[in-house]
């Protein structure tokens, strides 16, 4: 990896730590940002952050953001390196503008030991990665939901959180035990909230699209009833252990987000994230309709030849447009602190099967920023909100395990340069991940990453 000196003249800088955006020149030498010279002088920070971060028509096309941080990704190592490994993951992440990612422990075997935790982040080649990987430990032994994993040892080995992602902890007593043990170990529990009894055999969100396509329904209440239960247990545990923290990942229904909103208002330490696909797509995509969920729909459409695309099969499932709107509203009002990709690469053979038999998951880390920028271009999210959701929001949950995502002199030169007006079309030829199971293949997306630096080293250049 080269560490060239860089001078970025008159770019649109967005610094979510300083809450400042505007035209500036940024200098990088070695691994650090050495100077940032704002064109409008040193005064204009803060007050107009939320509205002022959006560039105007005459502002520079090239934008610099701190390198993005993902709270939820699967690098498939160990166990499924045919789908992805940390090296292909790091290339994909850098292409997506990411400099850090938390890796979920649904590896094979599950990351419930220090040995597997190490194997999750160790490149086979031995070469240093151009990003920071933060392992998440299994919350229970084998992710089986029977016994709490040895969290203290796992945290000592680098785990930044614990989760049984994909295997909800159904036993309420064990859920309370994990919350308490995670608090003692100083990490949050990240929970995939789902009642597997209610969602059993579900193929698509319960609703008119599932019914029309004859797909087995996955009811919204399978998620929001689990969310409500998890919040109830957190309330009981937090009464004894105030440090207990619960983060609910990939929430997808309006009702789930409302439960979190109410719990936060009551002072509970519960946070949540939403995914790019849940905020921007809807179940209408299953009909072959490729339309952002904020655009008005045509209810007269019929399934096209592109219907039943298994790259849309994901858990929780894509839902109605109103649920996508609820995801965006949750980001705007701060209920959701992060956009997390749930990057879930799968090999062709796991996706080129009948819709109901396809593996759940979307490979999303290369398109996440573009999807967020599409929402921003439509006026659904401010640039300030989306940058916070991709940087400071996740960083806050990780409590100092990362350098602050800022663009200021003396900070590590971990940043992404984006051409905000250029568009690109995801395809096998331009995606760097090993698996390309994304429903956005062939869809024109705004925002082209030109350069990603990780501590001054070029992680991606295009």
């Amino acid at each position, binding site marked *: 990896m080269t560490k060239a000196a860089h001078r970025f003249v008159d770019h649109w800088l967005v610094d979510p730590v300083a809450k400042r955006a505007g035209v500036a020149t940024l200098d990088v030498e070695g691994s650090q940002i050495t100077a940032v010279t704002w064109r409008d002088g040193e005064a204009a920070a803060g007050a107009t952050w939320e509205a002022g971060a959006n560039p105007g028509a005459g502002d520079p096309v090239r934008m610099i953001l701190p390198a993005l941080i993902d709270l939820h990704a699967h690098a498939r190592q160990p166990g499924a390196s045919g789908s992805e490994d940390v090296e292909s993951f790091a290339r994909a992440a850098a292409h997506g503008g990411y400099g850090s990612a938390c890796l979920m422990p649904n590896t094979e075997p599950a990351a419930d030991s220090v040995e597997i935790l190490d194997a999750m982040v160790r490149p086979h080649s031995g070469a240093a990665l151009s990003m920071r990987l933060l392992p998440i430990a299994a919350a229970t032994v084998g992710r089986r939901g029977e016994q709490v994993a040895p969290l203290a040892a796992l945290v000592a080995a680098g785990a930044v959180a614990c989760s049984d992602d994909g295997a909800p902890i159904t036993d309420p007593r064990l859920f309370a035990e994990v919350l308490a043990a995670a608090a003692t170990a100083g990490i949050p529990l990240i929970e995939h909230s789902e009642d597997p009894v209610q969602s059993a055999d579900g*193929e698509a969100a*319960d*609703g*008119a699209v*599932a*019914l*029309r*396509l*004859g*797909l*087995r*329904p996955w009811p919204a209440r399978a998620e929001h009833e689990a969310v409500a239960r998890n919040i109830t247990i957190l309330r009981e545990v937090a009464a004894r252990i105030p440090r207990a923290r619960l983060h609910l990942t990939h929430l997808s229904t309006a009702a789930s987000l409302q439960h979190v909103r109410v719990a936060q208002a009551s002072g509970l330490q519960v946070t949540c994230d939403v995914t790019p696909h849940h905020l921007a797509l809807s179940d209408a995509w299953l009909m072959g309709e490729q339309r952002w969920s904020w655009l008005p729909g045509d*209810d*007269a*459409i*019929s*399934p096209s*030849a592109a*219907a*039943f695309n*298994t790259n849309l099969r994901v858990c929780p499932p894509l839902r109605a447009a109103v649920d996508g709107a609820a995801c965006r509203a949750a980001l705007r009002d701060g209920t959701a602190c992060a956009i997390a990709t749930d990057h879930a690469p799968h090999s062709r*053979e796991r996706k*080129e*099967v*009948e*819709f*109901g*038999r396809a593996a759940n998951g979307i490979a999303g880390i290369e398109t996440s920023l573009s999807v967020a920028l599409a929402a921003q271009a439509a006026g659904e999210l401010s640039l300030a909100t989306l940058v916070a959701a991709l940087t400071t929001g996740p960083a806050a949950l990780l409590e100092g395990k990362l350098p602050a995502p800022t663009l200021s002199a003396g900070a590590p030169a971990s940043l992404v340069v984006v051409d905000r007006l250029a568009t690109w079309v995801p395809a096998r030829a331009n995606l760097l991940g090993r698996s390309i199971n994304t429903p956005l293949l062939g869809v024109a997306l705004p925002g082209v990453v030109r350069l990603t630096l990780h501590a001054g080293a070029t992680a991606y250049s295009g």
Partner: protein
Amino acid sequence: MAATQHLLDVDGLSWPELQRRLAVAEQMRAIRRSPAGRVSDLRDQSVAMLFYEASTRTRLSFVEAAHALGAHLIDFDVSSSSVGKGESLADTVRTLGALGATTIVVRHDRAGAPWLAAQAFSGHVLNAGDGWHAHPTQALLDLAVLVRHIAASDGSLTGRRIAIVGDLLHSRVVRSNLHTLTAAGADVRLAGPAPLIAGFHDYVASRTLTRGSIRVVATADEALEGADAAMALRIQRERLDGASLGSTETYRMEWGMTEERLARVAAPSCRVLHPGPMNEGVEIDPDVAQGPRSLVLEQVAEGVPTRMAALWIAAHGLDAPPPVVPV
């Protein structure tokens, strides 16, 4: 030669397109009645039957249809093939393509399987029923039978009331029939036990129809009131237990197509359909199934010309001149 033509769905077919299909099927019926009973229009076609789910009527009528058009038949036996060793649908379809199949007829227990086949295959794919989703040729043959018996003066089903009663949730037949019947202008009423009609209220509310109408009603009597035709759907006995719907006798009393109920509420000339196989004495009484109202055997017979038309249109396109009846 037209571009690749599939018959994956009837969702979205317009009344003029449906009329065109009915006209081709009518021509096929004439071919069947001709002295030779067959033509050789599709002699350059190889039709592969890929049935992942049991079928009597659909499979046999597709086989008969392929023969009547002179097509070569690749009768693929899923149970004795490498599918048992875990070969995927996509790989199986690619194998059939490599062996020269030009058309694949797919029956599958999962919704959307024919779309997967269409992606992996350069020829034509005909959906012979996919899970709960669609059964295009069944809906087309039902439409042909209904148009023959209860059409309005313009040949459509405008103003005709059609009741569909029973297990809607698991029925690909009802999903496809809703598209074709409303496109033909019919007013459709749906009724069934609450657990087996779940979601249809929202679905109907979400649809904007340019022709015909759909209403979900609470009882079989309401659905059948003034009906010109009534379709009973098969109820699987295991579902009666699973959904705690009580005994088959209770089901018959509440939802069964009985002569007493038809005589009391339906139009006097109301005709009765059933996609088969029937549970006589449960969703339909034997005297109805075999009585003068019944169109059940006509539905079965209609399967051959309807599927001949499907194969022929797949090969030649919807706008080609219809096949010539041999003299």
